[in-house]
């Protein structure tokens, strides 16, 4: 799969044998994968598979028990400007006197102590960034009054304005309607390509990402299989990852991962049972219309 081409690709991100224990339970087991500049990657797995832990490790909010994380070839300090992050759900008070452009400006140096000197240059940078994420038309609106999709654009602008090498998105599609979700995915794919940064986006459903995803990092039970979609989303690879026979079905351009013992679609439960990889529908949201 991946890993052997580490030095060749000039990786933005490299996880090497990362293991994590939390409260005596192993959350990640020897996770290794790499991302190159321009990669648009999906971090795919069901709830509790370890996606959020992987993101926290990359941000340096959690120390791995074993292994190392390299961003741009360097170990991370706590204050790193090379990783941008957009959390899953932010609740911004609609009464907070903060415009979209103010939040984006905080992306430049919001962690710095000392008074801020406004300048034409700053304003221009903010305007350009808002333009880049199609948020210019609500630049002067209060962030708290924007819709979920609009807020997400503002948060993406906030994360990107400090020119990170890697953008992490935690479940950006979970709280959006299908159309806004697709717009965000297209926007991110465009940004990854244009700005030559790596985007790692976590999701429990890989289907909306299939048309634009360069790489998939598939997480199950704390272990990871990474590579291109065709390399990873295959019956043998995922069966090995789950440690249980699964079948990868392709129906109408969608991918379904189901238990290997019973491949009939009717048998796919609506809610995968936690901790049991026996039957796992990746298309939980869109699965009904297959």
């Amino acid at each position, binding site marked *: 799969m991946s890993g052997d081409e580490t030095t060749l690709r000039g990786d933005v991100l490299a996880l090497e044998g990362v293991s994590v224990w939390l409260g005596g339970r192993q959350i990640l087991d020897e996770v290794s994968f790499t991302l190159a500049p321009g990669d648009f990657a999906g971090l795919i797995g069901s709830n509790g598979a370890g996606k959020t832990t992987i993101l926290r490790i990359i941000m340096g*909010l959690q120390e791995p028990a074993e292994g190392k994380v390299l961003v741009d070839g360097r170990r991370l300090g706590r204050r790193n400007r090379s990783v941008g992050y*957009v*959390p899953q759900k932010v609740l911004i008070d609609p009464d907070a006197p903060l415009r979209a452009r103010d939040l984006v400006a905080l992306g430049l140096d919001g962690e710095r102590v000392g008074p801020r000197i406004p300048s034409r240059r700053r304003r221009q940078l903010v305007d350009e960034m808002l333009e880049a994420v199609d948020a210019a038309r609500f630049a002067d609106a209060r962030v708290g009054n924007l819709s979920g999709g609009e807020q997400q654009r503002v948060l993406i602008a906030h994360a990107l304005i400090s020119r990170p090498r890697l953008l992490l998105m935690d479940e950006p599609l979970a709280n959006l309607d299908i159309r806004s979700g697709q717009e965000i995915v297209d926007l991110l794919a465009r940004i990854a390509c244009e700005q030559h940064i790596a985007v790692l986006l976590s999701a429990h459903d890989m289907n909306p990402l299939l048309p634009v995803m360069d790489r998939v990092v598939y997480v199950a039970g704390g272990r990871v299989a990474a590579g291109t979609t065709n390399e990873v989303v295959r019956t043998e690879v995922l069966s090995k990852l789950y440690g249980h026979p699964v079948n990868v079905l392709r129906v109408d351009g969608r991918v379904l991962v189901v238990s290997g013992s019973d491949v009939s679609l009717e048998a796919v439960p609506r809610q995968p049972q936690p901790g049991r990889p026996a039957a796992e529908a990746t298309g939980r949201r869109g699965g009904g219309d297959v």
Partner: protein
Amino acid sequence: MFADYMVNAWDVATIVAIVAPVVGFFVVLRGSAFVAHAVPEAAFAGAAGASLIGLNTVVGLGVFSLGASLSIGLLGRRGRHDVVTALALVLMLGMGSLFLSWSTEYAPEIYSLLFGEVLGVSSNEIGITALLGALCLAAVAALYRPLLLTSVVPEIAAARGIRNHRIDMAFLAIVALATTTAVPVVGALLMFSLMIGPPAAARCITDEPLRTMALSVGIALATVWASIAAAYQTDWPIGFFVTAFAFVGYALAHVLRWAREGYARIRARKPLPGGSAA
């Protein structure tokens, strides 16, 4: 009312009206109004205790408000302060009443700690108030950006390497400092209204953080100046006027916002000349 014995009152009230809303802007933004209520209660207990053992009341004020705000920060769980704040508030009121019962102090002195007293301000108090006020403003200016970020989007602040808990503790210390500045003049129970009222009113009117702060200083100055004048004319306690004017300011700001939103809605509904309505 601009006689010599009133000049100190005008000066100190002006300093308080600048410091309280600047700190209060973040109190309102962070939803910590309850903390801003508890800390002045501690200041009251501290002042009563200090006067009991013959110390300068400002020292008692400072020690107790700092102690209360830092323990609220330390004992709060996962950034939530409500339970420990409530307990601290009643504990401080209880201690205040204990110190009062032991005290042989002339009662109006203590009364003025709770409800404010403009006539009794001496000129050496101005120096302390100005110094503490300047310290507060400098601290807010220094922490402005991390404070704003942790208040609005704490998850993102953490991801940027900001330690939210440290910012929280620093902010509580600033609240204690601002309280120490203001309690001798406007009183413990009423200090709180200057911290909350003007910023809450200002943010109904403007959307930009720095402009909100500036506007709330303006509202607070108007409130305090009008209160001194009214207290002088009527001989009613100044605390009543401060709270009443702060409340009126907040209500007016809401009416203004409501009217503006209504106007915008009507305009949006009207068909554009020569074109169809959106």
